[in-house]
């Protein structure tokens, strides 16, 4: 069965590759023109930040950024760059876009990986627990807690955690990704980064956790109502086995979908959490580049993001097939 899945998957991937190219190019074109609707350009932002400007200074900046070229020339350049897998150059930052993205990637992966991992595992477990004890105290407690985390704004949780665990108890650092002053290396550095990771990952994770808990609970309760579960119960399968082998596996599909969506959004980062915790991730980079009208950089991030979303979608389809052999990959 596994070999079938793999062969189908390979065929599927090849077919999807053509689609990817079209989808990604389409996204690139739409982005290019959409972003130009924002009033003001990068030269105006730089001049604005400088607190002073002259027409000559602005002209020099526009020439440096290539903004003095007509839009169709800029567009042709941009498409040419994409087709040669070149994300372009951020004039504002004085670096190629791909460097800037790669530079932020480890921090982003660490934060998103930790929080999504924590949230999906613990969230699914809590949802499982709640569904098994539906209507009883455990269920109520889990559901109320999940609702609370879901409804509380992320930045607020972040600030409260900082106040309690950093300022008040002095257990964990306020923000950033490492204690630069200390100049740690090796294991000490890893421990230091882990200490910095706890609060942001928890803040972001608690929100996701709520989603997984609710999703898992609802999904399991739905499966519990299916005929094959009644059959299994009638056959005398123990409730534990019914839950673990029959219900859980079938209830995992929406959870995998959610997981796929969240992994797809990794490159977008988590703007609020990164801001509150001064975490040097991609979300802030994208957010700031929007305000700075650094379109090359923003387009680069959006494009990478769209590629990731498409790839994760394929992976999710394959996962469906593994979880439920009845699913056909089309």
């Amino acid at each position, binding site marked *: 069965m596994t070999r079938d899945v793999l062969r189908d998957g390979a065929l599927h991937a090849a077919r999807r590759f053509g689609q990817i190219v079209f989808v990604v190019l389409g996204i690139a074109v739409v982005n290019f023109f959409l972003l130009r609707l924002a009033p003001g350009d990068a030269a*105006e932002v730089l001049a604005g*930040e400088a607190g002073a400007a002259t027409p000559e200074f602005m002209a020099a900046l526009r020439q440096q950024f290539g903004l003095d070229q007509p839009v169709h020339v800029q567009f042709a350049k941009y498409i040419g760059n994409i087709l040669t897998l070149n994300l372009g150059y951020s004039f504002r930052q004085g670096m190629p876009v791909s460097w800037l993205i790669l530079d932020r990637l480890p921090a982003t992966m660490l934060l998103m990986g930790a929080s999504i991992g924590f949230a999906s595992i613990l969230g699914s477990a809590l949802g499982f627990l709640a569904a098994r004890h539906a209507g009883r105290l455990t269920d109520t407690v889990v559901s109320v807690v999940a609702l609370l985390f879901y409804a509380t704004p992320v930045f607020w949780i972040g600030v409260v955690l*900082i106040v309690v665990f950093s300022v008040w108890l002095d257990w964990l650092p306020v923000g950033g990704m490492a204690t630069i002053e200390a100049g740690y290396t090796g294991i000490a550095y890893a421990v230091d980064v882990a200490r910095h990771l706890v609060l942001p990952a928890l803040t972001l994770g608690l929100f996701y956790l709520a989603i997984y808990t609710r999703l898992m609970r609802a999904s399991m309760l739905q499966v519990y109502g299916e005929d094959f579960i009644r059959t299994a119960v009638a056959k005398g399968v123990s409730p534990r086995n019914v839950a673990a082998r029959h219900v859980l596996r079938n209830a995992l599909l929406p959870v995998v979908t959610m997981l796929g969506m969240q992994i797809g959004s990794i490159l977008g980062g988590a703007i609020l959490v990164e801001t*509150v915790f001064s975490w040097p991730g991609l979300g802030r980079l994208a957010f700031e580049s929007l305000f700075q009208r650094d379109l090359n950089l923003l387009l680069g991030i959006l494009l990478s993001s769209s590629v990731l979303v498409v790839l994760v979608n394929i992976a999710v389809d394959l996962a469906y097939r593994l979880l439920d052999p009845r699913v056909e990959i089309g």
Partner: protein
Amino acid sequence: MKAIWLRFGALAAAVCTTGAAFAQVEASKSLTAIVQPEPVSLTAALTTAAPTGVVSGSIFDGLVDYGTDLKPIPALAERWEVAPDGLSITFHLRRGVTWHDGKPFTSADVKWTLENVWQKIHPRNQVTFAKVTRVDTPDDWTAILRLSQPSVAILSSVNSNGAQVLPKHLYEGTDILNNPHNNKPIGTGPFVFKEWSRGSHIVLERNPNYWDKTKPYLDRVIFKVIPDAAARSAALEKGEVQYAVFSPVPLRDAERLSKSPNLRVETRGYEWLSPWLFADFNVDRPFLKDVRVRRALAHAIDLSALAKVVWYGFAVPATSPVPSTLPDFHDREAPKYPLDLKRAEALLDEAGLKRKADGTRFALSLDYIPYGDDYKRTGEFIKASLKRVGIDVNVRGQDTAAYTRRVYGDRDFDIAITWFAAFSDPQVGVTRAYWSDSIGKNVPWTNASGYRNPTVDKIIADVQGEPDPAKRIALFKQFQRIVLGDLPTLPLLELKFFTVEAANLRHPITGDQVYGSFRDFTIDARPRSN
């Protein structure tokens, strides 16, 4: 909600102070500061943005520093002379100064930077140095600026931020704006650039070959990028950060932080900037083109209340575009517009804009510079003020790029609120708001009101070439009387920016400290206080 929690936290922080953090700092003699927002480049000669200046000031020395009285103090220039006719300025440079890469600092660097950067790229200096026709360098330690007309303003803009000298040997013949050294600068200053981790921090290390052999005292300076205001407050309270400039925390937090035994809130060090907050009236709009309406608006706004309520006392009412922090130039006799609602109503009636049946007269839009909550609340305060005399104000928010395009490009606004640095000579920072040549050219921080007055334009041209300080002052006073009479721009407040710093940080304060260096900074050893 955030504020409540932080106040809660403040109490906690005061109880369990952060001895550990302080002990660590003493051991490594390293200082952690905040730079926010993240700078776009680290070379102030090419980017006059505030965050760039904050970091760049420790990497590059200026020809001079400025005292709190705004008089120049020797730095890279040991002394200087202005010829009696005002047509030449001679800088005698310090000997034995080297760039961080070991090459000597000479008058050729000054000449090259003046001719290629200050006169061609630097947004403020193109005007300031416009009258320089030639720079003579008779030897490596003498730079003589030859002028076509006297130019008094030069001596008030030659610190490390106003006129930063770049290393000729690294910049000559390159594409200056794209030179890689803009982001990893080689300067002459007390600290050497080490590392810039984007989105996180910038590290500077002690310059072992600094010309002042005993300095700097610190081994390392780290600038952290901390985008969230509440997190900045927490980092300062906890002692993770010891220095933060440009009003780094919300005004309502500043007072609370100043009561902490471990922190100090300092408003000195910004004299060279002399920031003023103002409202530009678009004089091309139907209602606002009538000077009586503009004066009525001025009479309707209680500036003392604005300073107290919105700015928590970190500002004083402004009576002129030339702030009172420039005592020589500031005119006390210029027209004033004290709070007088009856006078405001009378002026509006006189202009034929009577109250309608619903009590309102007309509506205006107001755009504020999106530099934080304080500016937004200034807009809301003005909205409430003008409501009292029957004017409806629609407060509009947008990001900076959209704001500058709207105000300086499209001119699609009625009232626009922003602030300028006046600098120590009004020629540098004030007259640009009134000079008619820049109207509608989409150049930020110029004349937004659309005010055109040939007399004012002539004064602006004349002060640039006037050698006699007394005559210049007379011209500036005449200028203030005219523009305050016509009132295209209503000065609101003289802002007081503040620095939050650790109480055990010791350093003298110069008038340009915010853009100055950490050369003289020391950290007191202090027992744990629990």
